[in-house]
């Protein structure tokens, strides 16, 4: 019997000849990602850090991104505590306020590579499956223990195989595809499982693969992973990562899967996740009369250059509807500057967009762009839970950049195919 991606990568990492789904292995992750929660994490282990030090100074990656620039004294103090920790313990990979959203930074800086085992105290750590990494979220306490000990346990997951064929028909995009999958299998459809993407996906750009892998956790998955192909190798090469720096891993052709699903990408249509669950997915047309107050373009799900370009192309020379706030969050400073150089930022701004710093911003409701009771937001983010954007009596609709841009223009939830 062949092995799945998860079985192969975890066997290698655990130093075992083979492992099987269900088995528990001890691994030393290649990297541990933490962000603004770093202050709380190191706060748990002040005495232990003094006594034992940290296990592997090259392992932690810290990115300040969730509340940036600091919103108040408390968050500013968290940032300061984090900088002090980085200095005291010689943390090698630290990215201060303004570099970007942690998941985008991990990728841009070549810290998430094929075949790596990566954990992060953030649920969307699964994003790096776009590059063939085994990447998954953990809690703060586990991150604290990892700083001290450098290792943790993982249960080898069972695997679901998703087979793609055909090509997406623009303005339909990867967001519509992954929301469709989540709508089909449910928010727990891949619980405890790995999801492998197979078939023909050469038409999916790296940006689009990140969007899909990012939302793996919204179907309950432990990891959501693409094989490393020419598209991935070419991206890695573009950020200065040569093939000598990684060893990619992929499933055997006769691996065992608990479930198989197939999708014809050509048949995917624009969809929206209606409040308040990510699997409450319906065709965009079902919300055609809903008045919109805020549009959010960006985040770790859809804040990359191609996402901003799609929206800018639709908004070019037009203006957002009266009464609509269009917030733009590039996923990183690199993305922001590339968008600046290409005139994308100018087009978004002149259409009425308000460009925010490259961080998590409104997505989690901690600051910047919170909603008021009764308001509706169409967002390219990954969660529409009640209260997510700071107000339990507001509504969040998750959609693609094209759908968000179309909705910004009309002030109503809109099908981007009708706006071109």
């Amino acid at each position, binding site marked *: 019997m062949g092995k799945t991606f998860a079985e192969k990568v975890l066997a290698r990492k655990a130093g075992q000849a083979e492992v099987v789904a269900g088995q*528990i292995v001890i691994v030393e992750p290649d990297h541990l990602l933490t962000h*603004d*929660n770093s*202050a*709380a994490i190191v*706060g*748990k*282990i002040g005495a*232990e850090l003094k*006594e*034992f030090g940290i296990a592997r100074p090259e392992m932690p990656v810290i990115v300040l991104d*969730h*509340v940036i620039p600091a919103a*108040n004294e*408390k*968050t500013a103090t*968290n940032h300061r505590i984090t900088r002090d920790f980085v200095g005291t313990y010689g943390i090698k990979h630290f990215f201060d306020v303004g570099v970007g959203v942690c998941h985008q930074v991990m990728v841009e800086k070549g810290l998430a590579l094929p075949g790596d085992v990566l954990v*992060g*105290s*953030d*649920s969307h*750590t699964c994003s790096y499956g776009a590059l063939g990494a085994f990447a998954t*979220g*953990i*809690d*703060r*306490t*586990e991150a*604290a*223990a990892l700083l*001290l*000990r450098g290792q943790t*346990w993982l249960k080898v997951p069972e695997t679901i195989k998703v087979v793609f064929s055909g090509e997406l028909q623009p303005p339909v995009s990867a967001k519509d595809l992954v929301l469709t999958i989540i709508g089909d299998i449910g*928010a*727990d459809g891949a*619980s*405890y499982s790995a999801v492998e993407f197979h078939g023909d996906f050469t038409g999916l750009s790296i940006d689009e693969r990140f969007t899909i892998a990012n939302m793996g*956790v919204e179907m*309950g998955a*432990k990891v959501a992973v693409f094989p490393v192909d020419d598209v991935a190798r070419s991206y890695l090469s573009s950020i200065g990562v040569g093939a000598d720096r990684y060893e990619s891993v992929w499933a055997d052709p006769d691996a065992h899967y608990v479930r198989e699903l197939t999708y014809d990408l050509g048949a995917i249509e624009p969809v929206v996740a209606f409040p308040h*669950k990510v*699997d409450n997915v319906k065709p965009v047309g079902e919300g055609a009369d809903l008045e919109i107050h805020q549009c959010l373009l960006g985040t770790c799900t859809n804040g990359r250059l191609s996402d901003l370009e799609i929206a800018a192309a639709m908004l070019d020379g037009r203006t957002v509807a009266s009464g609509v706030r269009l917030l733009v969050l590039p996923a990183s400073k690199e993305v922001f500057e590339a968008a600046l150089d290409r005139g994308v930022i100018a087009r978004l701004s002149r259409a009425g967009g308000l460009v925010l710093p490259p961080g998590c911003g409104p997505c*989690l*409701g*901690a600051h910047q762009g*919170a909603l008021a009771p009764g308001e509706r937001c169409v967002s390219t983010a990954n*969660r529409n*839970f*009640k*209260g*997510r954007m*700071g107000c*339990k009596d507001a509504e969040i609709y998750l959609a693609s950049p094209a759908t968000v841009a179309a909705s910004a223009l009309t002030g109503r939830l809109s099908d981007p195919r009708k706006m071109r």
Partner: protein
Amino acid sequence: MRVWVYGDDINTDMLFPGKYTYTCSTAEEIRPHLLEDLDPQFAGEVQPGDLLVAGKNFGCGSSREQPAVGLRSAGVQAIVAGSFARIFYRAAINQGLLLVECPEAVAAYQPGAAVTLDAQAGEITVGGQTFRFPKLPPEILAIRDAGGLLPYTTRALGG
């Protein structure tokens, strides 16, 4: 002992709103906001020994651990659910909070039914019906039994 009953897909934003994640970290800071957007009565009325009974995919969403920290600190005896989301599952183990994955027990629960738990035996009795639930593997049980991951880790390091 009170049993608090909730539905499917109870996410961590409902258990502890995201807007507090970078201002509330200690158990004392967390507890007043537990389940704030789901059940405004909960934080003020929960007592040590209480149980939560919920549907499938409990704890989905953000990796924030405040729900597990807060519920453990409030003395919640266990959460009985059809299934748990994986990050919350780990977070609960790491806080020493007992999770009982038993859809049959959830289905059998009727308002007012007596619920008793035997974690050692892996048994839960609901209104006179007894169900078995899967126990953690020994190496993971050791984490919970040590009182959570940090005491366990400190011990492993020889502290």
